[in-house]
């Protein structure tokens, strides 16, 4: 597999209107996405996962860092962004809000074609995209308004509107979080089929590890603007190394479960990033005295920890306590 | 409330005041480039007299110098002399403030006291017969020009039935004192106050009703009911405190219009207040007087606006940087 997207040192910070000044929403991300790969970006709300994918498509201004897409560095000019936005597309958590209530489904799907002046008979392009997204027969859906179809169908319309441009990368922001359980699986299956049939890559932002298990090839766990663990989805979920990943996995409600590792305290605040390892105030290793026993407690408190790759490069973890196995 | 919030609001009000002063100056002296021409239209003044007037009204020097002179004067409380009476505008206005304050203040308070409960009840019992009746009534009074309503009331109750005097503040030549004088004034005030109250009431009913309707679907009302509160207590303790917030600021804002609210109605009832003064100034035309009145009306509104903001922030814990 070859590389499609490479993020290096991506930062997104804003001036907060309130008290403490700077919000470090995305605080130094290095990440790659291969062609035909599904990457799940998981974490709690406020960890910067949505901001990160919005920055990739230029909806959020990047403060520093670089994005290389398909071998070329992405410039930030209007024209370059526009060209990029044909090859990178996005779908949203709330498909109801993402569709203009006054535009028909046909118009919603055709909008991208018109913006980019794509060649070809528009009705057929729209019909193909709708059918590909599972809305068959397409002509039945074309003249409808968004409020006349169900939530799952709206998400399919969004997918059709994105896929009609033939993108190489699809960014999906919590694509099934607002959908009913029974519909959820259908949309995920569709996403997987799109990858297998068109070779597109998907970056899916989610708080749901089950989604990663269902469709992702790789998984990246984010905490307070940083990636703390990344690797093959099956490996990470079977054998999490970072204490945060372990905690996240332990609280997935399941009938026969492992020992729960419930982190105390609130969802962390990116306006107020702790010193040292940013996870240390909530880290179970610190709380249980394990870090002290390992003799790393001072480093946890004062040394900012970087993502360290395994010798084979397939797994990376950012934790003072973790030594990676050799995965060749 | 944070001090920063309060200071910010005060500074904002001062900026508005500066804007008003500028408007007040430039409207009268720039729109009409040389006001002496139009101000004294129809009067036979010698060039010498005109020159004296010019100096008197700071019409010499550049526009900017004139503006500064105007600001200095205004800051000292000098608003010039009335053309009609030749007395200082400040004095004239001071004399007319009290009757207006009394009349419109009374009417506003009454309209509030009646309108707010009506609106609460109508909103709470939405689509009831009471709601239909009070909403139609409000829409009707809202559509009636206040002075015409005054004319009708005057025609019916003063001229037709003779129950009330046809105008004025008290009986001419009466030298009653104490309770008798007070009763006489109340007798004179009854019709104009009723007119204004009817004119204002609709707004309170409509705003209060829609504000209650906004809260009806709130989850916290459902929770209050689930707790076992009576319907009346759910309304009193949970719906009304929230729904009153927008009405509180409406009320405060309306107090800003107390001084300027009754111009036409005062004219109908020959009520010796600021409205009557405005009408006379228009007829003159008495520009210094108009200018002074406009300034006073605006200052009242700015103050009321400031109070409304601060009051809102005080009542709503979510506002004001707490």
């Amino acid at each position, binding site marked *: 597999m070859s590389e499609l997207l490479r993020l290096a040192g991506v930062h997104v910070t804003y001036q907060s209107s309130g008290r403490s000044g700077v919000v470090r929403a995305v605080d130094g991300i290095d990440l790659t996405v291969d062609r035909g790969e599904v990457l799940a970006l998981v974490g709690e709300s406020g960890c910067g996962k949505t901001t990160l994918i919005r920055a990739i498509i230029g909806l959020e201004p990047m403060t520093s860092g670089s994005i290389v897409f398909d071998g070329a560095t992405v410039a930030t000019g209007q024209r370059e962004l526009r060209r990029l936005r044909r090859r990178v597309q996005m779908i949203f958590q709330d498909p109801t809000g993402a569709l203009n209530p006054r535009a028909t489904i046909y118009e919603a799907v055709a909008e991208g074609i018109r913006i980019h002046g794509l060649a070809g008979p528009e009705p057929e392009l729209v019909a193909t995209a709708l059918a590909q997204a599972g809305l068959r027969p397409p002509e039945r859906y074309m003249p409808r308004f968004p409020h006349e179809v169900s939530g799952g169908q709206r998400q399919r319309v969004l997918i059709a509107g994105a896929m009609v441009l033939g993108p190489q990368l699809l960014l999906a922001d919590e694509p099934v979080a607002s959908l009913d359980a*029974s519909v959820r699986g259908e949309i995920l299956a569709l996403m997987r089929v799109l990858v297998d049939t068109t070779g597109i890559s998907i970056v899916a932002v989610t708080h749901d590890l089950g989604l990663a298990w269902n469709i992702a090839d790789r998984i990246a766990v984010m905490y307070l603007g940083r990636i703390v663990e990344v690797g093959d989805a099956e490996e990470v979920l079977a054998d999490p190394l970072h204490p945060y990943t372990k905690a996240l996995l332990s609280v997935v*409600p399941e*009938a026969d479960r492992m020992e729960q590792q419930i982190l105390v305290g*609130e969802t962390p605040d990116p306006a107020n990033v702790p010193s040292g390892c940013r996870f240390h105030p909530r880290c179970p290793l610190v709380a249980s005295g394990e870090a002290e026993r390992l003799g790393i407690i001072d480093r946890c408190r004062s040394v900012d920890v970087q993502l360290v790759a395994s010798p084979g490069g397939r797994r990376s973890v950012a934790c003072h306590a973790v030594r990676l196995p050799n995965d060749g | 409330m944070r001090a920063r919030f309060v200071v910010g609001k005060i500074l904002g009000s001062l900026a508005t005041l500066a804007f008003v002063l500028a408007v007040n100056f430039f409207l009268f002296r720039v729109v009409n480039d040389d006001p002496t021409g139009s101000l004294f239209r129809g009067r036979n003044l010698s060039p010498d007299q005109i020159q004296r007037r010019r100096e008197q009204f700071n019409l010499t020097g550049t526009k900017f110098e004139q503006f500064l002179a105007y600001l200095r004067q205004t800051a000292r409380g000098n608003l010039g002399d009335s053309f009609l009476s030749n007395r200082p505008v400040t004095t004239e206005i001071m004399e007319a403030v009290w009757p207006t304050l009394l009349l419109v203040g009374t009417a506003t308070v009454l309209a509030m006291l009646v309108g707010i409960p009506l609106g609460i009840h109508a909103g709470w019992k939405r689509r009831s017969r009471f709601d239909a009746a009070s909403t139609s009534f409000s829409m009707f009074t809202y559509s009636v020009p206040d002075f015409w309503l005054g004319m009708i009331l005057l025609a019916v109750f003063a001229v037709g039935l003779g129950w009330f005097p046809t105008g004025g503040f008290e009986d001419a030549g009466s030298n009653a004192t104490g309770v008798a004088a007070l009763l006489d004034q109340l007798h004179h005030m009854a019709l104009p106050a009723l007119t204004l109250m009817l004119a204002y009431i609709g707004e309170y009913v409509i705003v209060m009703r829609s504000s209650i309707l906004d809260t009806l679907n709130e*989850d916290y009302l459902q929770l209050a009911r689930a707790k076992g509160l009576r319907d009346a207590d759910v309304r009193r303790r949970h719906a009304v405190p929230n729904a009153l917030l927008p009405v509180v600021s409406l009320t405060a804002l309306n107090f800003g219009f107390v001084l300027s609210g009754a111009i036409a109605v005062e004219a109908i009832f020959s009520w010796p207040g600021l409205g009557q003064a405005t009408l006379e100034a228009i007829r003159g035309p008495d520009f210094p007087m108009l200018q002074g009145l406009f300034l006073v009306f605006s200052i009242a509104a700015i103050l009321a606006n400031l109070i409304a903001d601060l009051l809102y922030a005080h009542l709503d814990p979510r506002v004001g940087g707490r």
Partner: protein
Amino acid sequence: MTILELRDLHVTYKSDRGDVPAVRGVDLAIAAGETVGLAGESGCGKSTIAGAVLRLLPRDTIVGGQVLLNGDDVYELKPGRLRAVRWTAAAIVFQGALHSLNPVRRVGEQIEEAIVLHSDRGDAGTHAVRDRITGLLERVGLRPDLARSYPHQMSGGQRQRVLIALALACEPDLLIADEPTTALDVMVQAQVLELLAELQRDRGLALLFITHDLSVLSTTCDRLAVMYAGRVVEEGRTVDLLKTPQHPYTRALARAFPTIGDPRSRMNPSGLGGDPPDPTHLPSGCPFHPRCDMAIEACATADVLLRPIRPDRAAACVHVAVSA
């Protein structure tokens, strides 16, 4: 002892588009110390049941059947008695904590209101009441000084804890939790679930747990009832029901929440074709048949009610053999 019993409950809303049958004959019983989960997708009628128990539905709603709370039919109670039963016999933890708390009143006052309302003496502001509020807040893991805060000053997790404290204020026999963790982050959700489980254990509460998320119920409930189109389509003990779901809908729903590590669901998301039915236009016959992969001809015409399979287990499907 049975705390809550629903007997053939029917609820029909009035709307501009006609009658909306939201609940169409539900039987359910909860005993003291028992946790029962009610699962289903949006529009299946599960939240309506929460409102129906305390008679909180809109005035023009038609309610049929019986709701027995500690043996009394809630719909037969006089207004005064009904108000006394509310919050003391059953209290609700509503979904959406931000909107369930009055924004202009301190959270302490809102808890105090419930305590004072249901105590014999008018003892607002006394030490006893203040101590009680402190105790409640501490019990749900909050600092007592938060009583002086306004809802908007708290985090989502804190507000949800306040709602739980509020629900416990009058020591109810039954706690109804309506999607109590839906708006919360995964970690906070785990905290709240743990708290609810603890409280239930400590106080022997009956707990009715309503959610769309079957996986949440799997860890917290003794028994489960799965709703579809206003009816319970399957019920049974949690482990039993999830291990061997009998109704095709339950099966699909259970598969929709994958077990991480289960190779069958790896790279194989599972869902259910079609969409949840519109309550105003329910399909004929078994309302699930248009989405059912096991539907036979009869399903389109013959409606199926819950069939007992064995003690503690029932499902509403033609494929379920009726036990003797």
